[in-house]
């Protein structure tokens, strides 16, 4: 594999892994504080799944010459992360966390689905492995989203407000990379533009069912920057909190 291809794959892996690690951490912040016991356990369990998926990708990065997964996850500063800004936003109320979960997980599922046929076999293998987890996560997101979007006036208004708040950040997940042509050309990944189109097509039926309206497309302003290390000031405290114990003694055996 030539250097350009390796770099492009690394970039792809980093943004996916960082998305998963950060949203996994955010979602885990609900552990013990969830709205009801059963949902608390479900949401926490899915957060663990996401950390596991992130780890699988950090392992691939490690195989491509990057540092150990734990080091990569816990020893970087916020501006070295490549996650989209959507996933670093504070949890807010449960409505926002659910809307984000719905929007993110659909994209995540489609991304892995496309990668299951990637010419980069190690990634294709991971993508096939996480298929079932993602299916459940999306099913969970759809069910809550539709239920709360259409339950009563308060729940509808909350979901619509959270949706409006999340929307431009969600579009930011598809920030084009400088390697789009290479990744598409070499059959590694279908590219952000195609992914965004599929994502829109997939989420629209649920949005209609939930009675939520998508902001009109002239007003869309995707929030880019996360992929190249520009983040909101919410990420730094998250990274510090997440890595506090690890940084206390990076050589400790767990």
């Amino acid at each position, binding site marked *: 594999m030539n250097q350009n291809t390796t770099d492009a794959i690394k970039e792809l892996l980093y943004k996916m892994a960082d998305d998963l690690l950060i949203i996994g951490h955010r979602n885990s912040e609900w552990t013990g*504080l969830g709205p009801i016991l*059963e949902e608390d*356990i*479900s949401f926490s369990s*899915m957060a663990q799944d996401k950390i596991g998926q992130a780890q699988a990708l950090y392992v691939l990065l490690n195989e491509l010459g990057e540092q150990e997964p734990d080091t990569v996850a816990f020893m970087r500063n916020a501006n070295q992360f490549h996650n989209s800004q959507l996933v670093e936003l504070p949890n807010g109320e449960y409505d926002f966390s659910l809307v984000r979960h719905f929007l993110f997980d659909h994209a995540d599922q489609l991304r892995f689905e496309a990668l299951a046929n990637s010419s980069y076999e190690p990634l294709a293998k991971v993508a096939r492995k996480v298929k079932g987890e993602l299916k459940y996560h999306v099913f969970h997101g759809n*069910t809550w989203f539709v*239920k709360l979007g259409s339950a009563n006036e308060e729940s509808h208004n909350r979901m619509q407000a959270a949706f409006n708040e999340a929307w431009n950040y969600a579009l930011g997940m598809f920030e084009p990379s400088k390697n789009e042509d290479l990744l598409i050309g070499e059959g590694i990944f279908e590219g952000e533009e195609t992914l965004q189109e599929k994502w829109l097509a997939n989420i629209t039926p649920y949005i209609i069912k939930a009675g939520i309206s998508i902001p009109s497309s002239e007003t869309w302003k995707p929030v880019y920057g996360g992929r190249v290390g520009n983040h909101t000031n919410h990420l730094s405290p998250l990274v510090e909190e997440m890595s506090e114990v690890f940084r206390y003694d990076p050589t400790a055996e767990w």
Partner: protein
Amino acid sequence: MIKSLDPRITRAEINLENTIEPLRDLDQWETYEVFHQKKRGDQHMHVGIVHAPNAEMAFIFGKEQFGRRGLSVNIWVVKTRDVYVSDYEDSDIYDTVPEKNYREAGGYKVMDKINKFKKGF
């Protein structure tokens, strides 16, 4: 406000003066009985109960509470109130007069023949 070593608790700004009131009727979801199947072809077994607003959500919760360790291949959920439950007071209905070996499997002479035949091998 509660100040805790767990930063999430502190961030949640929980007021200590909050009085806890029982949930009103609509705030408390009804319960579903969860049955799981360990492998295809096996009988579904009762594994527990979840609170849920509908059957779909009950499945979601049931899967996560009882199937997340990869022990299930299939799940049934049934509204608790749809389950007819017999009364323990009536447990004497399971008693039966013992002298009826003509209707117990052990009473069939054919077993002797089968066993004899098996021994023949």
